[in-house]
């Protein structure tokens, strides 16, 4: 199990036991993290599963692919830490990771 903590915009914290291989979006949604909407269910088509990842953890993630980068541009979220959680697979390396969530996913 990999422990990941999602911090809502209002400071509410949820730590989940994520399965290696599932997406960070799935791990959040299946544990009821309200700040991840994931309208499109993980198709990299809606930009509503955005998370903010600080530099120290960001370095441990694979760089965003072309479709993720395009969708992030399309959303217009100006935060430089933004990633799409549906495009990040949970791995053992991410144990203890903490990410913050935007005020609104729209």
């Amino acid at each position: 199990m990999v422990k990941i903590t999602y911090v809502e915009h209002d400071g509410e914290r949820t730590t989940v036991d994520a399965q290696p291989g599932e997406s960070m979006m799935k791990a959040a949604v299946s544990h009821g993290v309200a700040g991840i909407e994931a309208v499109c269910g993980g198709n990299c088509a809606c930009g509503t599963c955005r998370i903010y990842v600080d530099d120290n953890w960001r370095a441990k993630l694979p760089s965003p692919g072309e479709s993720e980068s395009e969708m992030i541009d399309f959303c217009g979220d100006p935060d430089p830490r933004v990633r799409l959680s549906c495009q990040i697979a949970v791995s053992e390396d991410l144990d203890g990771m903490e990410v913050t969530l935007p005020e609104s996913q729209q």
Partner: protein
Amino acid sequence: MTNFETADVFKDLDVNDDPYSYFEYLRGKGPVTPLALRNVVAVTGYDEGVAIFRDDENFSAIDSTTGPFLPLDYDPSLDIDDQIARCRQENPFANTIINQDLPDHNRSKAILNGIITPARLKENEAFMHTLSDQIIDEFIDRGTFDAVSEYGQPFAQLVIADLLGVPKEDHGQFRDMIGDPAQLPGALGGDFDFSKNPFVGIATYFATYIQERRANPRGDVLTRLAQQTADDGSLPDVMEVVAVATFLFGAGQDTTVQLFTGMMRYLAENPGLEDRLRENPALIPDLVEEVLRLQGTVKSTFRYVRRPVTVGGVDLEPGMHVMINLAAMNRDPKRFPDPTTFDIERKNVRSHVSFGRGIHACAGGPLARAEARVTMERLLPRIRNIRLNEAKHGPAGARHFDYLPNYSLRGVSEMQVEFDRID
């Protein structure tokens, strides 16, 4: 007065004309409530519906458009997944992207994602502006137009044509290939004639385009479509690509048209609203969202239960049809306070479910939103004093419309709008 206890939502015109009262009756019985007919369970609760949309394991999308008229008589002594697979083979309309389950859905979705890219949407929006102006030119001097046939239908059809890269010289033919909304899945009574659908004509065009581009690539949008690979990196059959392209014309037609009629209706019924939007066009997206919430075109969609599962305290058994009433979820008072009030300043309006949720969420959502916004941006500077034709639709407070006889889609067959031209 309709007796809701005995009403058949799949046949009764009274329920069809006012589905919202029926949904409130259902909500009174619980967020998930079995109907006494056709092995259907109705969902009116927001949280319950979203949970079902996110559950691809216990639910299949095979009946998403047909509901209980799916030609599948479940036999509990046989494997349900085998029966679903056989039903798809025998009924091509149960095997389009909207009805597919994982992993087949991933394959179609990869082809579709290659078509609807953020970059392509941006280019498409530039076309929308020009197209909107041209169509408005056709009726601007008349002071009246039918929002369905004289704006919505040609606009929605040609936007999809442009999105897919149909050459300009063929746009006239595509404008003539608009389907009869009476012949769609979801028709009351379960009767519809898909052969009357223009998809056959559109599919013929696309088969030719794709074959021709595969033989002679030329760096246009259709060539990109022809070369788009599936999720496993393979090049799909021509007809697989044709199926996805053709599907878009169906999915993006009546749904979008009725978003326009919804907006025109709220503008006509709320004097002052048009001035507010004209003064502050930044409010247009909020109008679009609130109209989607209150008058989303897809009032109900379906899922087929394939494993025993409990939702909202109700046990569901394999073979049941879950009727997910989006129109009721969008009026769930637990999610949207004072839900029937039209309020473009509603804080959480964007969490409506008019485009669904989960892997089947509408891929054309961003497209439809752009179409609605561009339409308002082009119309409002040119027309004012927007009102409904009283001879046709009755006076304020006593309006009447011919609603599409369909248990899945909500819409009107025409909407005669009158206006003053802005010079």
